[in-house]
């Protein structure tokens, strides 16, 4: 998101603890609900030649945009990306500790801090998207090889498609090496960037100086907790529950695909997939509703 509109959409004030709690939640989401399923997926299907057309196209586009070298398909790429994200989380946490006071005031925020905030939002979004695209892709693959897969809610498919470009650009930003990214962030001038002055900063310093990582190319607000006075605990709880269900969904669908390719079926597994998909659809519909209410798309 462009710096000006981004700063204008920030809450007038919030605490540093909110940022640190967000980092901790992301680390947990990555470690507990994302990395394990990515490891399994890469182990089982990281070299797979995809059958489904949508997955094939996504795989090609991922290959073109991923800043990290990997061998195999996008599933292996997501795993490599997540390892980098893990390092970058540590880097951004260190920078928050260093650059932010206990209270963060929108009118006194600096360019560097705005960039750190945007980085954090993109990081959380990329973790979430990685898991959700895995759920959809494995489901499509099951269907493409002649299996049955419970219907993913239309809203979920739309979310994946709508945010595809943001993800492709986001991973270029957060997939960079932590030392290089840190250097780029530290080189941003400590100039106040409140809604009234940010236009001048852009004109004087130039867009590449104030937004070296290119957040301006991501056209959406990705995390409402810095923009809306809201029940953060409720939001985070739904995100966490969603992550848990998504993890379970990937595990079950991987198992289903594996059994299917061995010519086997398991009734209990299929029953659990349908049940979990139902819960996931309901949870994501609630999150979508919250996002719509809070103006994040």
């Amino acid at each position: 998101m462009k710096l000006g509109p981004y700063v204008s959409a920030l809450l007038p004030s919030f605490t540093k603890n909110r940022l640190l709690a967000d980092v901790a939640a992301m680390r947990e989401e990555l470690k507990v609900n994302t990395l394990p399923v990515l490891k399994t997926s890469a182990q089982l299907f990281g070299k797979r030649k995809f059958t489904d057309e949508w997955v094939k196209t996504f795989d090609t586009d991922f290959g073109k945009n991923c800043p990290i070298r990997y061998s195999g398909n996008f599933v292996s790429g997501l795993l490599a990306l997540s390892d980098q994200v893990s390092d970058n989380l540590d880097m951004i946490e260190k920078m928050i500790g260093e650059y932010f006071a206990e209270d963060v005031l929108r009118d006194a925020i600096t360019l560097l801090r705005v960039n750190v905030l945007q980085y954090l939002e993109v990081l959380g979004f990329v973790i979430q998207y990685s898991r959700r695209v895995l759920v959809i892709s494995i489901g499509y693959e099951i269907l493409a090889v002649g299996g049955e897969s419970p219907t993913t809610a239309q809203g979920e498919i739309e979310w994946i498609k709508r945010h595809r470009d943001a993800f492709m650009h986001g991973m270029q930003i957060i997939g960079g090496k932590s030392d290089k990214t840190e250097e780029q962030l530290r080189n941003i001038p400590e100039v106040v960037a409140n809604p009234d002055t940010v236009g001048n900063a852009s004109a004087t310093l130039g867009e590449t100086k104030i937004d070296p990582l290119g957040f301006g190319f991501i056209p959406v607000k990705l995390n409402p907790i810095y923009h809306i006075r809201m029940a953060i605990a409720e939001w985070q709880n739904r995100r966490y529950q969603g992550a848990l269900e998504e993890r379970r969904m990937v595990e079950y669908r991987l198992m289903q695909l594996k059994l299917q390719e061995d010519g086997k079926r398991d009734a209990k597994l299929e029953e659990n997939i349908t049940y979990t998909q139902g819960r996931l659809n309901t949870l994501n519909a609630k999150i979508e509703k919250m996002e719509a209410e809070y103006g994040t798309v």
Partner: protein
Amino acid sequence: MARFNLFPRGYLVSLDGGPLANVAGPVDIETVTSNPKIEVLYKLYMGRDVNPETWAFRRRVIMECSKLFGNFRNWLILQAVGNDYVYGLNLEFLRDTVQFIRTGHRNMSVLSMTELLLEHPDKHPGTAGPARLEAFDLRDTREFDNFIGMWCSHERGFDDMLCTAHTLFGVSKSPLVPFPTKL
């Protein structure tokens, strides 16, 4: 006669700790609803009624796991070679558990897997046999001498061990006989 306890998801525990060959002869298998000690420890852990980081709690879990599995390698061989109640995903869970002990990674979390396992499985005579051992790759006879240490050395390894023990030896989600409502 070799004596065994049969747990709700089909896993066996030898009561004699005797040689594995015993399973080929006449056996006395008693069906049990759970190991009560593991059940209590798991409830304390899940209910957050105890600090799982304390040595007092860990010691109790380690001791129970040590008693139940005994010689882990032998216990695995018993399930693969001598247990006709374990097959399909119930066997897959054992393979995944061995993978976790070796690498710290599971293909499926214990909680997700528990939802899929058969409870009170029927006996499928002839299912078990030496061919199933291949999937466990047990060539190194000393590999699991310190299986608890290996298990707990991984991140969240202790938690995994307790949850696994509960899946293997804990109560069924749909017991055949209702639990008594009064003591």
